[in-house]
């Protein structure tokens, strides 16, 4: 069965220019993501992982290489960046507002998502009244409000404390699976990447190249990320990727 390739990067390179000099962030990145797939990109910090997402979102023009993105992209950041002056509902409607979509149907959709994911009582609350986990869920629903085909996640859980993080990862994973999203996650947390992903791209240090690609197989498929952590192969993948990342060499 041939699945549709939603995202396709071919030999992409990115060099940043500043007065101080030029920084080669990406040397050569080739990456494919298929429909419905959850792909993680892990790499040492500062290796240009976020740059890849910015290129995919169309915020940056790569210096070289071809970029093909099939469908609409939703981008979720490390911090929730909710607008403090808007209530939950209006925060979620910012995307449809900008894209001049029909606000009535967007509102109905957003309200439905908010109710479905436990925020039904908080439609008119302001962000400061929400917990960290709730804020992150609102941020996800804001991203989903424009009905994206591909979701870009830039370490969206790293601002949360460990307990919250494990639950939020499960919640987000459930939402993504139910909404049948294609997702690309950038993270430096190997365990998180293994527990969530179908495939993992491991990047080298800057200038980044793809060092290896792991296809994650589960003993029991279809479990939540938290349950996946108990999988017997989890440790094996973790050790392999850990070695590959060569983190100790950085210190």
């Amino acid at each position: 069965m041939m699945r549709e390739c939603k995202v396709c990067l071919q030999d992409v390179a990115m060099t940043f220019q500043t007065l101080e000099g030029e920084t080669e962030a990406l040397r050569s990145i080739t990456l494919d993501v298929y429909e419905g797939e959850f792909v993680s990109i892990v790499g040492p910090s500062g290796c240009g992982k976020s740059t890849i997402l910015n290129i995919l979102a169309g915020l940056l023009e790569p210096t070289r290489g071809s970029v093909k993105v099939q469908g609409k992209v939703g981008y979720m950041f490390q911090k929730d960046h909710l607008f403090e002056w808007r209530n939950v509902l209006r925060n979620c409607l910012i995307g449809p507002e900008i894209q001049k979509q029909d606000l009535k149907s967007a509102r109905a959709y957003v309200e439905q998502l908010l109710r479905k994911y436990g925020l039904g009582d908080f439609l008119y609350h302001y962000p400061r009244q929400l917990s960290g986990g709730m804020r992150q869920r609102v941020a996800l629903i804001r991203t989903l409000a424009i009905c994206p085909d591909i979701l870009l996640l830039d370490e969206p859980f790293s601002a949360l404390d460990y307990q919250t993080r494990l639950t939020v990862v499960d919640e987000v994973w459930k939402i993504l699976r139910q909404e049948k999203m294609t997702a690309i996650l950038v993270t430096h947390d190997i365990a998180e990447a293994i527990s969530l992903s179908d495939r993992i791209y491991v990047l080298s240090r800057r200038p980044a190249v793809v060092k290896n690609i792991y296809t994650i197989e589960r003993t029991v498929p279809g479990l939540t990320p938290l349950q996946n952590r108990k999988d017997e192969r989890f440790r094996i993948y973790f050790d392999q990727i850990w070695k590959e990342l060569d983190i100790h060499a950085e210190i």
Partner: protein
Amino acid sequence: MPKSNHLSPQRRQYLRKQKIQRISIFTTQIAVLAAFFWLWEVAADLKWIDSFVTSQPSRMWQTMLTMHSTGELYLHVWTTVWETIIGFTSGTIGGLVIAIILWWSPFLARVADPYLVVLNALPKVALGPILIVWLGNGQPAIIVMALLISIIVTIISMLQGFLSVDEDKIRLMQAFGAGKVTIFAKVILPASLPNMISALKVNVGLSWVGVIMGEFLVSKAGLGHLIIYGGQVFHLDLVMTSVIILALCAAVMYVAVAYLESKLLRWQS
């Protein structure tokens, strides 16, 4: 709000304590003011101080009543308040518009930077004589003085506010496909609102400074005119009365801005 009969005794005690504290602070504030004026009055009566140079509350009151009956009071108050409002609004709006332009064009912002620094450091009062020569010795010179004194600070603080909005919030908007106008209207402006209000508060004060300075230099009416005139003819009753009316006007205007703040920033508290 839960009804008081649902409150625990501890809670009720706490609330009562808070209320008593609030009332006692307010009464003390009033008492300090009353004591000050009373002491002033008595000291003048008993010749501890020379009421010719310090004036006296009862004489100030008399002055106020006379000015009230001749209608002079309202002419002067209105003149000054009007000049301040015009100077304040034009300085604020002008500053805001220029700040928006400089935010829009980083090139212009970099060009303007040294000029803003110098103009900000320059005491605007020094421009008074130039303004009189250019605009004549009338109200326009006074209003422009008030405007000049507030506009530069407004530009600088607004622009700083605009530029300090989180880069990622802008990236988020761009990822949704927002252009510069949308980003400004939906993120930069609302995010800078607290900043803008504090600029307004500063500007109210600065506009009063500008207007009174202007009235000191040129004027035929206004509280600043009364103060400088009263000083020249050693009519201290008039000076003191004007100063107190001025303080009241400034306070009212400040409270108005503070009220606006509470209305606009409801999401913050």
